[in-house]
């Protein structure tokens, strides 16, 4: 039927961009799902404005979704798109700078009107004035072809028909990259099941897009990206926030305790609240609190009663929760505090990513108030990180901060779904009987008598007969937990709380140094995992020896970190802040690490990091 050629590619980066109202996130999600089903490895990066609907057709209103898929292991959403789908002039203008010359642009010509061009400062249409001659442009009248294809749907208004143009674009791109559309058809059937005409129209638009690619001469070839070799198993695609919520639920299941989330909505953390609210069947209780302070208070109250108390928020919420986290340090009760970091200070960049809350969660409380901190490194890793956070909280009876960020929260990747019985056993024992004898030899309960190994105190929940006791934020006497203002006791208690956190069992830092003779180590934490791994891969492919390691645990640090830092001539620490981990490393180990920082609200690009590492490689060669 068609004389078109099919070319095989090893990787592609596509960016869908349009007005906030154009449905680009949905289009991207669907394309991702189709791609996952084909077995490609992938990574995604949504990028949207903080405003729900900025004025139509303007630069601030542009929303985009980038997807990187390949026949091999994918580490980042890709530095630069190979294909840009631009639904209007604003989308083109906002994204063109990221587009390497030679890349492909699919532009919706219907939106390139004089008025829309003027809105973003184009005097002439870039589709016609030759300014895009270095790119490969497909000018497609996406809107009008969609409307035409939907002509038989007499019950729909023109507006409703126009709205299906994102499905047309999805159909076209699905043809271009030979993606199956059955998953999307099922999805639409579920979404519009109750409105048959809208469903049929969307399906028709999807097919029209596919057919347009297949029949028009504008598209000479389509592309195939083979499946990536992946470990055998059952996979699904997850965003970081979904994985994190699943990890919390799984941890509570494995602990045999109910999960109670107290939370106040905030971007980019709200999806954790949303996801957990839908898990009631799994015994998960969610309480949308009146503010962040109440959110953490509710979680702490639930922990006091024997639940796994969790609160989820972003940086501004952490600021409000600090005093309660300090109380939890003093009460020595389990508590998981999830911080999905975003650009700061203050309201900052709500929908953009950053790693600038590290020092806030480490030190942003009054008094000596040590709190274990760990960070997730990829969207799927949020699952494991959540389990680990619960393990630490319940084993050591302490608040724990789990750091993620906007990039991980909304980004997605395939995840090999684990078998439940392979997950760590997180069973905890509650105190049920007196643990000491008093001077008269009578059994008594000492709420601050510690486990000699973990230094954890008993978790004695209300309802347990014979263990009635009082706890509070006033300094407590060692062992008895009575109020104490004694100077030496305070000194003891401060050091005990610190020793407990310092003694938390965390695995040694694994260093990836394949040649074994690297002189430069790139040490990252959190969501820089993908870009750091991608940059080192590029350099190794070019014949350089570079070592790489990634910190999951930021407090306490792994025991071998000191040794690792001293093994390399140069240690580069890239961070999306102004050098917070670098400060901790220098202060803790007296090692002069090199800090590379950027706070642009975006993840590092592979090229940028590879360049920085190259410069350091030259110094030591």
């Amino acid at each position, binding site marked *: 039927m068609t004389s078109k050629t099919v070319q095989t590619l090893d990787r592609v980066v596509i960016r869908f961009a349009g007005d906030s109202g154009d449905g680009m996130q949905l289009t991207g999600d669907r394309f991702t799902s189709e791609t996952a*089903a084909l077995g490609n490895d992938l990574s995604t990066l949504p990028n949207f404005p903080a405003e729900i609907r900025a004025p139509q057709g303007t630069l601030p209103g542009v929303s985009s979704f980038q997807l990187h898929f390949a026949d091999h292991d994918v580490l980042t959403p890709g530095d630069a798109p190979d294909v840009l789908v631009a639904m209007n002039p604003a989308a083109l203008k906002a994204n063109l700078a990221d587009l390497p010359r030679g890349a492909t642009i699919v532009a919706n010509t219907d939106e390139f009107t004089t008025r829309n061009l003027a809105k973003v400062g184009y005097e002439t249409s870039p589709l016609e004035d030759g300014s895009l001659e270095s790119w490969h442009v497909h000018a497609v009248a996406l809107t009008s072809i969609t409307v035409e294809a939907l002509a038989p749907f007499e019950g729909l208004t023109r507006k409703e028909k126009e709205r299906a143009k994102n499905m047309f674009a999805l159909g076209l791109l699905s043809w271009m990259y030979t993606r199956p559309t059955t998953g999307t058809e099922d999805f639409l059937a579920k979404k519009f099941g109750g409105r048959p005409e809208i469903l049929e129209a969307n399906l028709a638009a999807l097919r029209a897009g596919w057919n347009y690619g297949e029949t028009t001469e504008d598209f000479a070839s389509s592309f195939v990206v083979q499946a990536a070799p992946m470990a055998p198993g059952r996979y699904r695609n997850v965003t970081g926030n979904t994985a994190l919520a699943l990890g919390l639920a799984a941890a509570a299941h494995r602990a045999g305790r109910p999960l109670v989330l107290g939370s106040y909505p905030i971007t980019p953390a709200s999806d954790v609240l949303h996801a957990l609210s839908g898990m009631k069947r799994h015994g998960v209780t969610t*309480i949308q609190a009146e503010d962040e302070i109440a959110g953490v208070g509710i979680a702490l109250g639930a922990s*006091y009663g024997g639940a796994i108390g969790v609160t989820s928020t972003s940086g501004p919420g952490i600021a409000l929760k600090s005093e309660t986290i300090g109380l939890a340090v003093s009460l020595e009760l389990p508590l998981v505090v999830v911080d999905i970091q975003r650009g700061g200070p203050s309201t900052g960049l709500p929908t953009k990513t950053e790693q600038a809350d590290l020092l806030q969660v480490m030190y942003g409380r009054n008094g000596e108030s040590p709190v274990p901190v760990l960070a997730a490194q990829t969207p799927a890793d949020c699952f494991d990180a959540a389990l680990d956070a619960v393990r630490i909280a319940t084993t050591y009876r302490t608040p724990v901060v789990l750091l993620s960020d906007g990039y991980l929260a909304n980004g997605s990747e395939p995840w090999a779904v684990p078998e439940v019985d392979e997950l760590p056993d997180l069973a905890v024992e509650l105190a049920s009987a007196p643990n000491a004898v008093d001077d008269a030899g009578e059994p008594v309960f000492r709420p601050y008598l510690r486990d000699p190994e973990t230094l954890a105190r008993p978790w004695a929940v209300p309802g347990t007969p014979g263990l009635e006791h009082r706890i509070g934020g006033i300094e407590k006497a060692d062992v008895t937990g009575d109020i104490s203002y004694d100077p030496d006791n305070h000194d003891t208690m401060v050091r005990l709380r610190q020793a407990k956190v310092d003694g938390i069992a965390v695995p040694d830092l694994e260093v990836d140094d394949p040649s074994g003779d690297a002189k430069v180590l790139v040490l990252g934490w959190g969501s820089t995992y993908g870009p750091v791994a991608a940059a080192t891969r590029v350099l190794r492919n070019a014949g350089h020896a570079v070592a790489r390691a990634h910190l999951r645990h930021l407090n306490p640090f792994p025991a071998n970190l000191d040794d690792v830092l001293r093994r390399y001539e140069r240690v580069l620490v890239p961070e999306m802040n102004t050098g917070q981990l670098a400060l901790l490393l220098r202060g803790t180990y007296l090692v002069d690490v090199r800090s590379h920082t950027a706070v642009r609200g975006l993840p590092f690009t592979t090229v940028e990091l590879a360049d920085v590492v190259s410069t350091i490689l030259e110094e030591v060669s």
Partner: protein
Amino acid sequence: MTLTDLGMPVTGLQHVPHLPDDAPGQSKRDFTSDQEVRWCPGCGDYVILAAVQSFLPELGLRRENIVFVSGIGCSSRFPYYLDTYGMHSIHGRAPAIATGLATSRPDLSVWVVTGDGDALSIGGNHLIHALRRNVNLTILLFNNQIYGLTKGQYSPTSRTGSVTKSSPLGSVDAPFNPVSLALGAEATFVARAMESDRAELKEVLRAAAEHRGAALVEIYQNCPIFNDGAFEVLKDRTQQAARIVRLRSGEPVTVGPEDDRRVLVRVAGGHGEFVPEAEVGAREVVVHDAAAPDPSAAFALSRLDSPEMTHVPMGVFRQVSRPTYDDLVRAQVEGAVDAAGGPATDADLGELLRGRDTWTVG
């Protein structure tokens, strides 16, 4: 529709384990902890503590199922002195912590002890939301119209013009009426009592504990150190009767000694006025109805009060039934669990983890 129709618990202590009938009775001593009480001599908090310690045995609950959660302030030291479970938390946040506890543990009788600063200043937001949600909590608000623990600054209930350490020329703040505030916050149970009237206090405490939902009890408490005599006119035997309006549901609202009784009658525009019994005539007498669904009448009663304390209603202003937040939250979770055939198994969790869209490799 009543709570019973909805299949909801009706009393505050319904799910809390009680002592078996043949168990030896509890006494005040059982509720007295080994900690030395450290309030100033003469502090009204002692009186409230004694009343609560001697009242708790009457509930017949298992001691380990009672929890007192407090904020910060002199009053908030309360939990240390009771031999129950207790948490002395942080300033203003006790209602939030108690909400988490009560929602996850229906088998507990959860009490909040707070002060006028703790509850109405720093913790005002949590208080109104606990009341609005109708969490099954008994909240005791010790109102001494001053910040005691920080040594005597004016509070959100201090009278305008109060001369305190931080208001040497008199405070210019207008005070809250805690009862009006609670009613405005949709509270289902609101009462007021005097620390010095033990019988009345116990009666109110019992009604509050047995109320299913958030019960707010404002207790007038004297701080002899920083605000001595704030409620003296209500304690003074010669003035007491003329000022205290004892609210009894189903009875006319009256004030004054037997020989000089005044009766509250309705006046156009809402509020009532007290007129001598003999002059009531054809006027409409206000009969107190704590169970009235509309809180306006209770609110009007709360407005009889004034900083001069000419007429101060005491007792239960409002006591109505409304599903509680914690019961509703649990019903949703339990409903979902039951509908799915019981607590989630490993297989159920596996299904959750896999989601709806998986693919298999190899």
